[in-house]
């Protein structure tokens, strides 16, 4: 079967259990089993080739530039691990079917399990380290889901997140390491990397790469000091623990170390780091395991210890060590999975995993007892079981190993580790199964059905078979070892056998076993001592660390993002000004190329006014009306300045916009408080002043700099000057630029205006439709309102003025192309005319007589402008291409017809519509309750017969 299919099957199959969920538990587990089995069989079809020493590869390009390709390879090592993953996986699936209760969502479980399985298979089959990384992270993710499967358990959630955090950290570090490795080797393909031992080990980047990769391996394989997550992952359902911690997840780190063995091992750094970490983990795990009362915790720490053992073996960097490691992996997987499952059975039957509450189960659960005892004895390294064999090999290896110049260090610690290892195994057997039968089990235990005990039983058979006849496994393990060694050194010739003679390893083994028994005998006093001894709890430290980081980031992020716009803008201003100053300081300033023009009295006076108004605004801004008036002055002076510097169009625009803005702000100010209270401290104010002054000085300097220098080349506007009449048909260059050369800008601009109006309208609607409405209706003014809502004189004047304003607007519109003016200004002028009418006779009276919906006017304006532009498509010209002609109809003078005028009409309409819609919406907000219906345009009209009495209350005031 193709390797692709082997990897893909679990992933594809992962969909099935979820879908089959409704079909029942049997179907669910069944389909999972079938999927897994197919992959397993698929793997086996490749066995002959692999066992013959071939490497099966397939590959497809994915992201060749990056060097990330979907290349898979199957060699002895990969085959070995895949076999474990899929084989034990099958047993686990069978076991889980019976283990999970009816409340558990089985489809979800098996989906996660298959995802995990696929990811694991992916890791061991990857021929590309980036691909491997992807699968690596996938195992973190899917194990996260598996560990957190029982979502209602806080331990489950926390364990899951801890596992994800720690292994995720390692995974991310590994990304760095792998990228460096790939960079050194020039390829991310394992097959290439593995050929480059010298290149890699001599590179200056070797050490960082090694450290980062080892960080990944150690976190994944729970090596000290990252060992703490593994026991907490035991919160998962037992099948998960059995799977993750015997054969799969935690072995991924080991696998990678084995995989990288040919290129990374052998250096002093490798030996020092890996051996030390392994050794510490082994001893520490064993010691802790001894004192754990939770069966699963005990097993978890024993796993930690054994992983340390394997790591240490790999760290020694000898061929024999590697072979021992491989062998122990196999053995560990078998007995540990069996033990976990047994523990699960105990838990399942007695409803407790606390050793202290157990004992005497031998009588009640004989089958489980046999399975567990065989597994535990194997773990303890008792002869005739497979654990003994690999332990012997380990001891033999460590006997030869020298670390930090000491020949005793490694063997001594290894024996110590084995001793404790034996001790906890014995304790497991003795305290759980042996001893008298108790009558206080939380539930009545008995042996479960075959579904639960069969899978561990199968494994125990393997334990015994290999233990009795090690030569069965020998060729296989040697093939695996060969692929680990990758041809760097030869596979050792040593034979696997039970009796090697009276070698040092045997003595050490005996010491360990006997010591283990002694420790068990004096367990109670030891436990007391252990409980009394202070010891750092890694979980607490880790959680404290994460808490601290969270607290730190909260302290950093929260105050910074507390919604204080004042600070935001201050930050922005300082950043901008600072960047500008920096750019200035690091540049070079040349000579001025222009001379300063003399200033007359008018500019000086204007300058004074502007400056005075601006400064007055700073001091008087708390009085909002006054600030508004001062802003009006600024606007006025700016527009006078525009006139002075030959920009009549601008002056007009500025002034009309100013007027509309003031009206708008007045409309808004009607609701807002009339004064701003003092809220900033003196310090804040002086800080603000400092920033403001520096900002002002920078702008001044920049402006002054530019004003005294010419542009680097003549500006492009020379073209506009030359062609505005020839090509645009107008003498007002500004207007021609607006409607022709850069008409697209103007098009965008009217759309901006239109959107602004729509937005204001939409917001008004939503305000009036919301809770604000009642408040608005019953709003009380904070000042008494003067009488005479619609003063007569104003109304009368408006009657004459409004048509004239319209006329002027029309005039400005028409003239715009050649003289200052244009659709935009005309639009504003006309709107102001209408606003005058609104102000004079009031909203209701005016609106009642209005015939055009402003929405439509805006839409029409934008559409006209757009369609005018599109019109040029019909003559195969780009959008907005203009054309013009001159016509003469008596008695009129010759006048110009330009498409630009239509565009300008669109502008005009859009502006009128937008301004009016905005103002209208705002004033609609101001409707109060009991607003008299406006029958008359003015309140006081002596010519009217019916003198209004509603407004008059005689005799008062």
């Amino acid at each position, binding site marked *: 079967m193709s390797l692709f299919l082997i990897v893909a099957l679990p992933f594809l199959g992962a969909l099935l259990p979820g879908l089959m969920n409704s079909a029942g538990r049997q179907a669910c587990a069944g389909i999972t089993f079938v999927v897994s089995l197919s992959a397993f069989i698929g793997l086996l079809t490749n066995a002959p080739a692999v066992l013959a020493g071939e490497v099966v590869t397939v590959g497809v390009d994915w992201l060749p530039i990056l060097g990330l390709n979907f290349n898979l390879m199957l060699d002895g090592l990969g085959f070995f691990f895949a076999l474990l993953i899929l084989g034990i996986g099958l047993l686990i699936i069978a076991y889980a079917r019976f283990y999970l209760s009816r409340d558990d969502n089985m489809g979800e479980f098996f989906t996660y399990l298959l995802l995990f399985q696929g990811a694991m298979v992916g890791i061991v089959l990857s021929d590309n380290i980036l691909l491997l990384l992807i699968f690596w992270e996938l195992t973190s993710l899917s194990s996260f889901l598996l560990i957190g499967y029982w979502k209602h358990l806080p331990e489950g959630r926390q364990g899951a997140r801890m596992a994800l955090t720690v292994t995720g950290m390692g995974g991310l570090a590994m990304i760095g390491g792998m990228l460096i490795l790939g960079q050194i080797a020039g390829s991310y393909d394992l097959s290439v990397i593995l050929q480059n031992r010298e290149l890699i080990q001599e590179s200056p980047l070797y050490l960082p790469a090694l450290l980062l990769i080892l960080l990944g391996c150690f976190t994944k394989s729970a090596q000290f000091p990252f060992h703490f997550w593994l026991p907490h992952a035991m919160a998962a359902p037992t099948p998960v623990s059995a799977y993750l911690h015997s054969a799969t997840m935690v072995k991924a780190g080991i696998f990678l170390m084995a995989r990288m063995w040919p290129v990374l091992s052998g250096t002093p750094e490798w030996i020092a780091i890996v051996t030390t970490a392994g050794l510490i983990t082994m001893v520490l795990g064993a010691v802790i395991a001894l004192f754990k009362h939770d069966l699963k915790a005990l097993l978890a720490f024993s796993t930690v210890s054994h992983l340390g053992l394997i790591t240490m073996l790999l760290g020694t960097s000898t061929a024999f060590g590697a072979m021992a490691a491989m062998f122990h992996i196999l053995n560990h997987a078998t007995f540990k999975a069996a033990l976990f499952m047994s523990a699960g059975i105990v838990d399942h039957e007695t409803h407790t995993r606390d050793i202290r509450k157990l004992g005497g189960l031998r009588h009640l659960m004989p089958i489980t007892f046999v399975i567990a005892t065989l597994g535990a004895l194997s773990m303890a390294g008792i002869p005739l079981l497979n654990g003994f064999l690999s332990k012997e090999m380990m001891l033999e290896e460590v006997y030869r190993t020298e670390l930090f110049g000491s020949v005793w260090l490694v063997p001594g610690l290894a024996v110590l580790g084995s001793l404790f290892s034996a001790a906890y195994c014995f304790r497991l057997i003795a305290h759980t199964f042996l001893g008298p039968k108790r009558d206080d089990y939380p539930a009545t235990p008995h042996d479960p059905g075959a579904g639960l005990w069969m899978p561990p039983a199968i494994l125990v058979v393997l334990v015994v078979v290999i233990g009795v006849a090690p030569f069965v496994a020998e060729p296989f393990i040697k093939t695996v070892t060969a692929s680990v060694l990758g041809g760097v050194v030869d596979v050792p010739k040593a034979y696997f056998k039970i009796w090697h003679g009276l070698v040092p390893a045997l003595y050490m083994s005996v010491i360990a076993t006997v010591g283990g028994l002694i420790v068990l005998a004096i367990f109670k006093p030891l436990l007391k001592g252990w409980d009394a001894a202070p010891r750092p709890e890694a979980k607490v430290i880790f959680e404290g660390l994460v808490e601290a980081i969270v607290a730190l980031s909260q302290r950093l992020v929260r105050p910074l993002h507390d919604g204080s716009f004042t600070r935001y803008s201050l930050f922005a201003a300082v950043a901008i000004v600072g960047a500008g100053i920096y750019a200035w300081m690091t540049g070079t300033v040349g000579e001025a190329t222009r001379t300063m023009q003399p200033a007359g009295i008018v500019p000086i006076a204007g300058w004074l006014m502007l400056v005075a108004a601006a400064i007055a605004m700073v001091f008087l801004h708390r009085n909002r009306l006054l600030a508004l008036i001062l802003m009006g002055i600024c606007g006025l002076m700016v527009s006078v300045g525009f006139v002075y510097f030959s920009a009549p169009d601008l002056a007009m625009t500025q002034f009309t916009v100013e007027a509309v803005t003031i009206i708008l702000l007045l409309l808004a100010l009607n609701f807002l408080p009339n004064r701003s209270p003092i809220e900033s401290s003196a310090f804040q104010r002086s800080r603000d002043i400092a920033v403001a002054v520096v900002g002002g000085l920078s702008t001044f300097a920049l402006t002054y700099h530019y004003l005294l220098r010419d542009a680097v080349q003549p500006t492009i506007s020379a073209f506009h000057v030359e062609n505005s009449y020839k090509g645009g048909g107008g003498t007002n260059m500004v207007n021609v630029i607006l409607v022709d050369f850069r008409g697209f800008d103007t098009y965008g601009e009217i759309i901006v205006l239109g959107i602004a109006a729509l937005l204001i309208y939409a917001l008004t609607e939503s305000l009036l439709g919301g809770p604000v409405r009642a408040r608005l209706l019953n709003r009380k003014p904070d000042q008494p309102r003067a*009488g005479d809502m619609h003063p007569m004189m104003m109304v009368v004047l408006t009657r004459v003025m409004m048509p004239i304003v319209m006329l002027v607007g029309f005039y400005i519109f028409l003239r715009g192309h050649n003289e200052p003016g244009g659709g935009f200004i005309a639009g504003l002028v006309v709107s102001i005319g209408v606003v005058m009418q609104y102000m004079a006779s009031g909203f209701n009276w005016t609106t009642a007589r209005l015939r055009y919906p402003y929405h439509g006017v805006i839409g029409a304006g934008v559409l006209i402008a757009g369609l005018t532009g599109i019109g040029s498509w019909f003559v195969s010209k780009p959008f907005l291409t203009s054309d013009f002609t001159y016509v003469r109809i008596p008695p009129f003078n010759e006048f110009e017809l330009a498409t630009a005028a239509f565009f300008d009409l669109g502008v005009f309409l859009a502006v009128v519509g937008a301004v009016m819609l905005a103002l209208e919406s705002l004033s609609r907000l101001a409707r109060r309750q009991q607003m008299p219906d406006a029958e008359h345009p003015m309140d006081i009209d002596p010519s009217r017969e019916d003198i209004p009495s509603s407004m*008059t209350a005689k005799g008062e005031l």
Partner: protein
Amino acid sequence: MNFEVIELYITVAFLLIGAVFTMVAAIGLLKLGDPMTRLHAPTKAATLGIGSFLLASMSYSFATSEGSFHEVLILAFLFVTAPISANFIAKVNIHKRSCDMPDAPTKDAMWSTMDVPEGDRDIEVRPDP
């Protein structure tokens, strides 16, 4: 002395008149002591001053080029709008109690500005200083 020169002198005259009245308006605005009296200066002196400038511009254009008369339009605008502005500002002054209050009218109940809507009568007036 031809026609153009006369027009130039007329221009000068208008300019001078304009300057004087503008100045008067400004002085009045600053000097006078009561908001209502202050109102008198700019509404007319300034109107007239600026009006003179406009006329000067007109006569100058007649002197130097074809001549234009659209300044009259602005002049008209100013003259038409100035009373309304003044009227509004006077109303503001009355409403804000920033001047002496007039006696109640003899014919009607009260001046329209003081005809505060009933709902607002219990709100305290915050007069300007």
